[in-house]
């Protein structure tokens, strides 16, 4: 069964009971390369494997861009 979340503003189907770390793996995004904001809260990187996505979650993956 899949749930639906908003990923960077777009609806995205996700497997039921998937945690943030596994979700980033499915997207092939290295966890240390992004900041994850879930429902307007910045998630500590240490919590990626314990926070499970819920239907309707709004997720923002924010990139590190250091150029100037």
């Amino acid at each position, binding site marked *: 069964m899949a749930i639906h979340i908003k990923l*960077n*503003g777009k609806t995205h189907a996700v497997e039921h009971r998937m945690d943030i770390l596994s979700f980033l793996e499915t997207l092939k995004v*290295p966890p*240390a*390369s992004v*900041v994850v*904001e879930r429902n*307007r*809260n*910045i998630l500590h*990187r240490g919590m990626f494997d314990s926070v499970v996505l819920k239907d309707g979650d709004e997720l*923002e993956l*924010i*990139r*590190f*861009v*250091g*150029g*100037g």
Partner: protein
Amino acid sequence: MKDLTATQKIRYSRNILVPEIGITGQQKLLRGRVLVVGAGGLGSPALFYLACAGVGTIGIMDGDRVELSNLQRQILYTLKDLDNLKTHSAQEKLHRLNPDVCIEPYNEPFTAKNGPALVSRYDFVIEATDNFEAKFLVNDICIHAKVPFCHAGILGMFGQVMTIVPGQGACYRCVFGNIPEPDQVSSTDQVGVLGVVPGALGSIQAAEAVKFLTGSGKLLIGRLLTYDALNLIFREIELPPPCCDVCRGAELIQ
């Protein structure tokens, strides 16, 4: 407030016609003090537009010299400036453009030592540096000194910008936490950057400084604006309230 001269009324006529600026706003700009940290891809357009707008005092901080590979995006410089100090070349250009503006050049990198005294002499800071160490340092020092600033970062065909007024919204550290491990993130030295990306974002940074000085409009506080030039998508990410140690008043993280 000091009256505008006849020449100034002509030079700034298009600013003055904008209802949100007007004569009073122009006088505020002429009395305004903005520090631009980093005179590269972001700093170039920001400095040009601040000087055009008649921001009275502009500090330019950069310890680098102009290199050939800079000219693809750092529009302040020409072939004639190769090997010259960026602060000197920038000062010369901006003075020729608008002699009303007093340029204060600092030919050195922004550090934990020189930063605190420097930022407190300005009304607003534009963070246009090219590395994470400096981005976090400018953030922490501005938050401590309670000086508002505008951050931008660029990479490839992507960029981001946010304005931080200490206490009024998330700061750079609230969002990004700590300096990332170098092997986890790419740099412009590895993946490049298209010149128009800092062009667009440096211009937005200048607009934020002008809005702050004139007290007009709504600043980009508590929001991160991202610019995906490849797909031409601007997005705004709503940020949490201030939540990091620096915003809570912790000692400087260095």
